[in-house]
């Protein structure tokens, strides 16, 4: 019981401090899960990041499930995951209600416009990171390391998406099949 509570609380903290999502929280998860509580070894932690890259779902959720399963079985996985998501959902719901209630206020309208613009910038930043990973395989950007196959898949997906408005899930499957064929 104490262990479940500890896991819930640890992932509660991780969830609370992971603004912007993605890979910015890796150091914090590492510190808590590997260094403080010894729930995972350093090697297992590296593995979990690789697993996260090859499975759908947010990194924090994947890590919490993995750690929870290891340490406390299914109950552990549920506690850790619940801890991880609860603050994010509560806060985003609170913010949403606040912005809806005060939609007439000039201040809130301006803040919302600003958040829209800046989140767009942040999404663009994430997109460039993913693009570089896909096009250059994580190596420094240069013409030598450019993966033409990735560029081809990127262009095909983009054109089909814009022209035919195809379902994003189908597009993902298509991109995966193209990858299997080309690589």
């Amino acid at each position, binding site marked *: 019981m104490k262990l479940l509570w500890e896991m819930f609380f640890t992932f509660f903290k991780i969830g*609370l401090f992971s*603004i912007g*999502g*993605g890979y*910015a929280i890796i150091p914090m998860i590492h510190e808590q899960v590997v260094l403080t509580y010894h729930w995972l070894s350093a090697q297992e932690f590296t*593995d979990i990041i690789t*697993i996260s*890259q*090859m*499975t*759908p*779902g*947010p*990194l924090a*959720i*994947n890590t919490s*499930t993995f750690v929870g399963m*290891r340490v406390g079985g*299914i109950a552990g*996985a549920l506690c850790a995951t619940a801890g991880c998501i609860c603050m*994010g*959902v509560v*806060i*985003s*719901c609170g913010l949403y209600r606040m912005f809806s209630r005060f939609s007439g206020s000039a*201040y809130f309208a301006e*803040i*919302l*416009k*600003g*958040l*829209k*613009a*800046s*989140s*767009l*910038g*942040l*999404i*663009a*930043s994430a*997109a460039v990171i*993913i693009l570089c990973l*896909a*096009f250059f395989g994580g190596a420094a950007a240069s013409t030598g390391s450019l993966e033409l196959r*990735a560029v081809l898949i*990127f262009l095909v*997906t*983009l054109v089909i*998406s814009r022209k035919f408005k195809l*379902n*994003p*899930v189908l*597009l*993902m499957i*298509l991109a*995966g*099949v193209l*990858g*299997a064929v080309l690589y």
Partner: protein
Amino acid sequence: MKSKKDLAWMFCINLFISAFTFGGGYVVIPMIRKYYVEKKRYFDEEELMKIAAIAQSSPGAIAVNMSALSGYRVAGRAGLAVGCVAAVLPPLIILAAVSAVYALIRDNAVVNAVLKGMEAGVAALIVEVIYDMYVMVFREKQWFFSLMAPAVFVLNYVFKINVALLIAGSVFICILKAGLARRKERRTS
């Protein structure tokens, strides 16, 4: 309040979306757009941007926040719960299964090839959404916000400035901007 049928639909669609969010939570935005905005017309593009901005400005996984919020927008608290659970279940199940057979798939060439393909596909989907959203921001013809998006991009990507700091900064600047506008209004009236 929406019917049970809507809730069941949202549950299934969120399961489906969550099972395909390879490459980070941002893919959820085009997916929510496809199903909630284009197919069901639960809300419009403007609302989608609002939900995306709030999901991103809150702590936690963007994908989960996004499904929870769009569920909330459509069906209140029941929708919130449905969105949450459906977003979390697929990674939970998949990860439990994958961690059992991890050693087998880690070095599998086909799995890796499929993943590489999907990586490029994800990039394409996100680029498309960014383009459409930026067109919407740009159409409002307010240079301040049209410039803000690229500025935040540069600060985050080039100068590696922390996301939380950038969000706090943009809130602060907007409050300042609204305050100045109000002062100006008072002075002229």
